């Protein structure tokens, strides 16, 4: 585990079957999706991440100060999410620590949930979800779950670095990318992402409440979205929307 980024387990687990990651990113899709999964499955808090590379932020819930990046779940499913954007400087150490922790806990599949910006999102009723896998096992799982593979494109942000670290460590990492608004919170995209997670990990998380609460979520996550958009400025996030330089 990276010394710069420490995963602290307040309720230690010997092993973890599946690990889901959803950070503030495009359309806050991943964060909204995994937060809904935590709430719906009533997953308990089991740890957090400490690092000098993270902003000096603590959040207060029900009068209790909390670390902004926290772990929830049990030995079947652990979820990592954050209530603050991860700055460029912290992404690589976080990805190193997370993948090392996943190997230590014998995680079978590490699933990152995120959004992929599409220009015509306003016209899309039900966003489609695309998948990227780091190995043949992951590709087979995507195929079984009928999730279309992203054939060409760029990934920028925490999920891109998790892919990089998973490739070098031989870890099965699947990235689920739901078509999203680029700069607006997108609960609709998060609902599509949850449906893909359901198929991939055999869960039964209902998205009805998420869709009912979508407009309130959009109002209440404006400032996190604004801060996340600001954090993208240092990481060439717009490259995700560039056409690939194909000449072969």
């Amino acid at each position, binding site marked *: 585990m990276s010394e710069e980024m420490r995963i602290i387990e307040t309720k230690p687990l010997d092993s973890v079957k599946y690990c889901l990651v959803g950070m503030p990113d495009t359309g806050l899709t991943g964060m909204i999706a995994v937060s809904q999964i935590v709430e719906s499955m009533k997953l308990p808090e089991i740890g957090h991440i400490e690092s000098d590379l993270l902003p000096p932020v603590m959040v207060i819930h029900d009068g209790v100060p909390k670390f902004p990046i926290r772990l929830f779940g049990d030995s079947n499913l652990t979820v990592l999410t954050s209530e603050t954007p991860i700055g460029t400087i912290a992404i690589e150490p976080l990805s190193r620590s997370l993948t090392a922790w996943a190997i230590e806990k014998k995680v079978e599949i590490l699933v990152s949930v995120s959004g992929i910006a599409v220009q015509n*999102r*306003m*016209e899309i009723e039900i966003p489609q979800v695309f998948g990227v896998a780091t190995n043949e096992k992951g590709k087979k799982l995507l195929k079984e779950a009928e999730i279309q593979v992203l054939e060409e494109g760029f990934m920028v942000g925490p999920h891109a670095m998790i892919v990089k670290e998973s490739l070098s460590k031989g870890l099965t990492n699947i990235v689920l990318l739901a078509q999203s*608004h*680029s*700069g*607006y*919170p997108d609960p*609709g995209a998060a609902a599509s992402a949850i449906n893909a997670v359901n198929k991939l990990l055999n869960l039964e998380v209902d998205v009805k409440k998420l869709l009912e609460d*979508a*407009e*309130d979520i*959009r*109002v*209440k996550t*404006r*400032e996190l*979205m*604004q801060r996340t958009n*600001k954090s993208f400025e240092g990481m060439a996030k717009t490259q995700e929307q560039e056409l690939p330089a194909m000449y072969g």
Partner: protein
Amino acid sequence: MFKSFDDIEREIDETFEELMSSRPMWDSSTGRLEPLTQVKESLDKIVVTMDLPLVRKEDIHLTIEEKNLNLEAPLVRCVRYERWGTHSDCKFSSFYTIVNLPTRVNPDKAKAKFLNGVLSVELPKTVKGKKINVE
């Protein structure tokens, strides 16, 4: 060394932008929220989009001045924040913003649409680029 007027103007713009992006997106005294807004400029037009959840199309009040786009839109119901920070109860009832446009536009040719809670306003530029013949 003295700074040029351009440098001073750029510094003022940067400071203003920094202040705008770091200030709160709400005002509890007026009950107004500021919407997330994106401004994209192309060769012949400016497109402003805004995320306006809890807003009905018929309630959107949009006006344009020289280089400003003004929006006011009441929410279909108040948004409440209970036990938030030092506020025991905080209520918001509308979105309000003034968007500074990067250049002058033709208000008579402006078009707006509202789909799935996102407002998109297309504003053709007044002065389009002058064509240069390539020899």
